[in-house]
Structure formats: structure tokens, C-alpha cells
């Protein structure tokens, strides 16, 4: 096994307000893109700023290529950071912004010129070299900021919600571009975001954080398909959360008896069933839930259908051709392809029932 590029060990940092993180352990392999994902206040930025040296952790250690960097100030660490906004130095031209770090490292002038030109070409902004940051659009500024960080050739590149101030379309483009650059340069990156879609689309692995702790650490696919907790389930993607009762071997959801998914043991008692809209299907089988259609919304190539079953709203995705035949108020039957069940205890801790179903409805 190769040595991890970045290793965080039992990192803890608590602020006076009570916010912060505790016991964060994470290894990032060379060339990997790991995303810290969570709602605001979950501590993801705290972890990132600790790696960059802008916060001093209470305990734990941070190693980059096997060396502890905990004692080093930001300017001595082999990291570079892209900030959320106000990233560029307003009194310097784009060229000077990029060249500054290399000047400090006492590179030769010819070398600096070549490196800066290359970096600007990498982010497709070669003509902007003589401009001031205020003359660039938000997206261009963030691209320059990215180029500036890349130029420093850090061992780990840290990105703190770099695209959150941009509009949706630009955000998508920047995402692709970043992934592209990461593939080409093979740079190790730690990315912070609260946007689950962004995290799913660009990461090799995602760290879902909640209330200062790691909730789940896995690949995007795995996190989407096998959320380890009700919080992860409700935070990532769209999901229906339905109250159910388990007797230890079988789960009763309204009129339906369900077998737990393989490998899932459930204690007797109340539980919550999490099922994604794409795993709900229309059926004629008797072993299914009866409901009435409340709303059909066409969203491009598919439609989102809200079905009321025993006063619970269940959202499902239906191919558009099929949705044409569905009418409001129509009685239908639906089945669940796959689902995850969470015992009530964890549900009580993380999200209450109503809050969870509301969250699912708004995600």
C-alpha cells in the first residue's frame, strides 16, 4: 500500500461557541479528489483550514507525505488554498497575482514567465494577463485563483467552496474543468462543499460530515446507494422517508410487509424507511401500496409524481411516456425496488420524522 499524501489523525478543534470537529481521521491517496460535504456549521471548513494552517487544532495530527505539518505556519506548508471569494489580490494584475508566489520562491524570471503563461493557458485565460481582477467576471476570477494555487505546485490543493458564488451554469462548467485539470495534473485535492450534487459529480471519495463528525466516508456511488445513516440518506440526493414498524425480522410499512435488505439486521420497534424516488415503480402486483396521484410534474425526460398513500406523500420518478397516462386523483399501486431501513433511535438523534420528510421534499 502506498503512503497517503495527506493523513489526518484524530483531529479535534472546538470553538468557544461549541462548534467544531472532533476525532476526524482521514487518509487521502496521491492524486485523489476527496470532498468534505455537509450542511453549514458541520465543521468541513474547520478541517480544511486546519490542513492549510489557518487554524490550530486542539489535538490530533496532520501529516503530508508522512511529515507532520502541525507546527508549520501556512506560508511554510506544502498546501495551497482556493478561497470562496475575494480570492485575488485587487492591487495586482492577473500576471502579478500568479507570479507572486514564484517570486517569493526565488525562481528565475524566464521560468516564472513560462510557468505563468502555461498556467493561464491551462485555465484558458491567456489574454487576461495584464488585466486587474476587478476587470474579470466572477468565473474568470475563480479560474485565475485556481491557476495561482496550481502554480505553487502544492502537495495538497485545498478548495473551500470555490464555486459557490457562481451561477448554476458556470458552476457546472467549472466543475468539469476542475476535474479535467485534476486528471491531467494528477494533483491531490481536498474539496469542501455543501452542494451534494457537486460532491457526487467530482469526487473520488466523499466525506459526509454532520455536527463535527464524519457520518460516512465512501465513494459517491456507495454513499448514494448505501447511506449509513438517516442523515446521510436525507442529505444526499432526493429520498422519501416513511415511518414503519419492525418486528425484528420483517418490516411493516402501512399495508405492506417488507423483507429487510440482505445484511440489514433491525431491532424490533419503530423505524424509518428511506427509498429514493427512482426506486419506486408503478405496478399491478397485489404486494404493493395503494395510493392516489396528487401531482405530476414533467422535469425534462422524466416526470416526478407525488402519490398519497395513507396520508404519506411518496415521490417517484416515472419515464415521460408513461407519465402521459397519469392523471391527478387517479388510483394506482406502487412498489419499492430497494430501500434502506433505519431504526428509530438514530432517527431521533439526527432528524425528527417530520423534519426528515420535509428535508426529503425540499432536497
Amino acid at each position, binding site marked *: 500500500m502506498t503512503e497517503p499524501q495527506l493523513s489526518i489523525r484524530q483531529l479535534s478543534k472546538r470553538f468557544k461557541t461549541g462548534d467544531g470537529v472532533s476525532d476526524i481521521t482521514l487518509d487521502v491517496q496521491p492524486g485523489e479528489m476527496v470532498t468534505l460535504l455537509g450542511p453549514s456549521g458541520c465543521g468541513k471548513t474547520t478541517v480544511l483550514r486546519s490542513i*492549510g494552517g*489557518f487554524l490550530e487544532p486542539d489535538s490530533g495530527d496532520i501529516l503530508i507525505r508522512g511529515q507532520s505539518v502541525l507546527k508549520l*505556519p*501556512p*506560508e*511554510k506548508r506544502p*498546501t*495551497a*488554498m482556493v*478561497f*470562496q*471569494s*475575494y*480570492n485575488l*489580490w*485587487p*492591487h495586482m494584475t492577473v500576471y502579478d497575482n500568479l507570479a*507572486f*508566489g514564484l517570486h*517569493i*520562491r526565488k525562481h528565475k524570471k524566464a521560468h516564472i514567465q513560462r510557468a505563468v503563461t502555461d498556467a493561464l493557458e491551462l485555465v484558458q485565460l491567456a489574454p487576461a494577463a495584464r488585466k*486587474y481582477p*476587478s476587470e474579470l467576471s466572477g468565473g474568470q476570477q475563480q479560474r485565475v*485563483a485556481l491557476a*495561482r*494555487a496550481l502554480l*505553487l505546485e502544492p502537495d495538497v490543493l485545498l478548495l473551500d467552496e470555490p464555486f459557490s458564488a457562481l451561477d448554476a451554469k458556470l458552476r457546472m462548467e467549472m466543475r468539469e474543468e476542475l476535474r479535467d485539470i485534476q486528471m491531467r495534473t494528477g494533483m491531490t485535492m481536498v474539496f469542501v462543499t455543501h452542494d451534494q450534487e457537486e460532491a457526487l459529480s467530482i469526487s473520488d471519495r466523499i466525506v459526509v460530515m454532520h455536527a463535527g463528525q464524519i457520518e460516512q466516508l465512501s465513494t459517491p456511488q456507495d454513499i448514494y446507494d448505501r447511506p449509513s445513516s438517516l442523515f446521510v440518506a436525507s442529505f444526499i440526493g432526493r429520498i422519501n422517508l416513511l415511518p414503519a414498524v419492525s418486528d425484528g425480522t420483517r418490516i411493516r410499512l402501512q399495508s405492506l410487509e417488507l423483507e429487510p435488505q440482505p445484511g440489514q439486521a433491525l431491532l424490533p420497534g419503530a423505524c424509518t424507511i428511506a427509498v429514493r424516488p427512482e426506486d419506486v415503480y408503478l405496478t399491478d402486483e397485489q404486494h404493493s401500496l395503494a395510493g392516489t396521484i396528487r401531482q405530476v410534474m414533467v422535469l425534462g425526460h422524466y416526470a416526478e409524481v407525488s402519490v398519497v398513500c395513507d396520508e404519506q406523500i411518496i415521490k417517484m420518478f416515472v419515464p415521460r411516456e408513461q407519465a402521459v397516462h397519469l392523471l391527478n386523483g387517479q388510483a394506482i399501486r406502487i412498489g419499492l425496488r430497494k430501500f434502506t431501513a433505519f431504526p428509530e433511535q438514530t432517527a431521533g438523534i439526527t432528524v425528527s420524522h417530520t423534519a426528515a420528510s420535509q428535508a426529503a421534499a425540499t432536497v
Partner: protein
Amino acid sequence: MSHSVKRGMLGLALVIPSFLILFVVVILPILYAVQESLIDQNSGEFGLGNYIRMFTEPAMRTNIIYTLNVTLVSTVIALLVSYALAVYLRFGKGWMARWINRLYFIPMFVPGVIATYGLITLYSNHGWMARLLLLIGIDTFPKIIYSYSGLLLANLWFNIPFATMLLSSALAAVPNSVVESARDAGASSLQLFFRFILPLSYKTMWVALTFIFMGIIGSFTAPFLIGANSPQVLGVAMQQVFSNYQETHTASAMAVFMFLLCSVMGYFYIRTMGQDLDKQS
């Protein structure tokens, strides 16, 4: 009448009241003072006699040099101290920084006369300082009040809080991410200051410099109460020439000279601001 002409007239009508006030209370007196200064105090003839005397009479020349000396030294020290203080308040995190932040502007709320008498009671030969030192057996106390140093002290007391306030707000406008990204790129503390903090706040530094300079060069109360009898700063000397000797024309010449000194400062100030506008546009 066309629409644009009407709008032009309206604009003029709105400007005229303030222009008239400006004309009557500022421009006219200046012109009058210039005219007065050009009438020779001794002969009554029109000419540069007052100015020539001002720059050739030894006592007056000493006063001018003394004034410039006090002003420049006080301005530089006040600016350095305020800058250091503002940087400390911007980046300092301890209880000290918090307390200084709450207290530093108090001198601005103390009237000048009271502050000056305060300085006298504190630092004069039989003042509190001298007595406190006597308690621990030190019976020599330097002459601070009624001298150059007393004047310097008063100037610092009056100008540091204001300059600090100006500079603090300029430094507060420097975003944290600029500072952090600079350090991230490898800038040391010195580089951080000279390449980032200073360029991003030097415009305000010029404002502070101009205000301190003008305030000190035209000051009267403190130097009148706390300064030496000779040499004197121009403000005090002018008052003496005007009231005691009743030499209106000589006093006018001094006033015009002071006005010119301030204009030089104003010229640099406006030029700096203009350069910045060019860069931004």
C-alpha cells in the same frame, strides 16, 4: 426653452446657494488676505515687502523652520504610531487589542484646552509625574512642558486617535482571504505588510497624513498653552503679530504662506487620489 437648457438652469440654481456661501466665507477672505499681505506694513506701498521681511528676519525665519520641524516630526511619528496601532488592532486577538480598541479614541472626545492643561498638570516640573518619581527617589525631571517635546506630545495626543481610526477602517476593508491567500502563497510577515497591507491601505494613509499635517501646521491652542516662548509656531506667532503688534499686513502674509504650505499638501493628496481613479477605470 429646450429640455436640456432647463435642466442646466435647474442644476445651476441648485449649485448657486452653496457657491455663494463658499464665495463669501472662503474665497473672498482669502483674496482679501492676499491683498492685505501685499501692502507693505512699514511703507504702506503695494509690493512683496512683508514676504521679504518674513523670510529674512532671523526671529521669523526661526519660527518658520521651527514650525516645519515640529509639524513634520509630529506627522511622521503620529502616522507611524497610528499605523502600527491600526495593524495591531486589525490582527491582534488578545485582551490587550480588545481593550485598546475600546479606549483609543477617547482623546478625541476631550476638548483641546482641557487636554492641554491635563498634559501640563501631568508633565510639568511640579506635575504628577515629577512627584511620583520623587516618591521613588528620582529628583531630576526633564523639561517636557513649555518646549519642543511638550508640543510634540500634545500633537501626538490629538492626532494619533483620529489617524488610527481612519487607518483601522481601511485595514478592516482588507479581506481576510487576501491576507490568508498571501500567506498561503508563502509571504512572510514583512512581505505581507509591504506587498499587501500597505498597497491596499496607502490611499487612506495619504488621507491621514494630509489631515494630520494640516491640523498640526495650523494648530494654536496647544502651542499657545504648552509651547516655548521662542521660537514659536506660526499660529502663535501670527496671533502675536496680529493682536499684540497689530501688524495686520504682516499677519496676512504669514497666513498666506501657511495657506500655500497646506496647498502643496493638498496638491499631492488630490494627485494620489486621481492616480487611483485612473487605475480603477
